[in-house]
């Protein structure tokens, strides 16, 4: 079964869940861009990241995250700046720009995600595509 989710809809969902305007965009069939504003040390900072999916072993996803030189430096600092914003256990490890992500640790999606076995991820210019099997 193939599920698709337009990036515009994904932007809306994330904004509703986090009260944070986030913009997802297409880069290639395995890479998306993410842009959002973040309050950091009393200053609003524009964060632009590209995320390349390297492998999928559901619910574990390995991804290469590039946030530019300054952003990467913050990330290499052990996610200390971002750690408090993310669900505990979501990022299992982060070394050399490669993050091991456990999507089962997103609290509001935990139950939904446990019903599916996601076998693949592919991006197209307008949408995120998931190849899904039922558990």
């Amino acid at each position: 079964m193939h599920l698709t989710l337009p990036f515009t809809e994904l932007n809306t969902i994330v904004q509703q869940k986090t009260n944070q305007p986030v913009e997802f965009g297409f880069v290639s069939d395995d890479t998306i861009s993410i842009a959002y504003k973040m309050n950091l040390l009393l200053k609003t900072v524009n964060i632009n990241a590209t995320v390349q999916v390297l492998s999928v072993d559901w619910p574990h996803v390995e991804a290469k995250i590039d946030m530019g030189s300054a952003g990467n430096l913050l990330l290499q600092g052990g996610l200390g700046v971002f750690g408090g914003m993310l669900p505990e256990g979501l990022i299992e490890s982060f070394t050399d720009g490669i993050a091991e992500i456990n999507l089962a640790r997103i609290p509001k999606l935990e139950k939904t995600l446990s019903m599916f076995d996601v076998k693949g991820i592919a991006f197209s210019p307008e949408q995120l595509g998931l190849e899904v099997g039922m558990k």
Partner: protein
Amino acid sequence: MRTQFNGIRIEPGMSVEVVTLNYGNPLLTNGAQEVISAFKRIYDIDIKRAGICSQAYLDVEKLG
């Protein structure tokens, strides 16, 4: 240069060709099963057990 991953010997230059009906990257679809099977068939190695079934280790080139 030869490298061992989880006791499995991997050599640079190893490559496989995969014919797929999926429209996406075969490493990111169907649990990369087509790529895993191709490496098993051609080199008799389990790239999943070796922990290299990822674009961090493998380059994907679209042919045709």
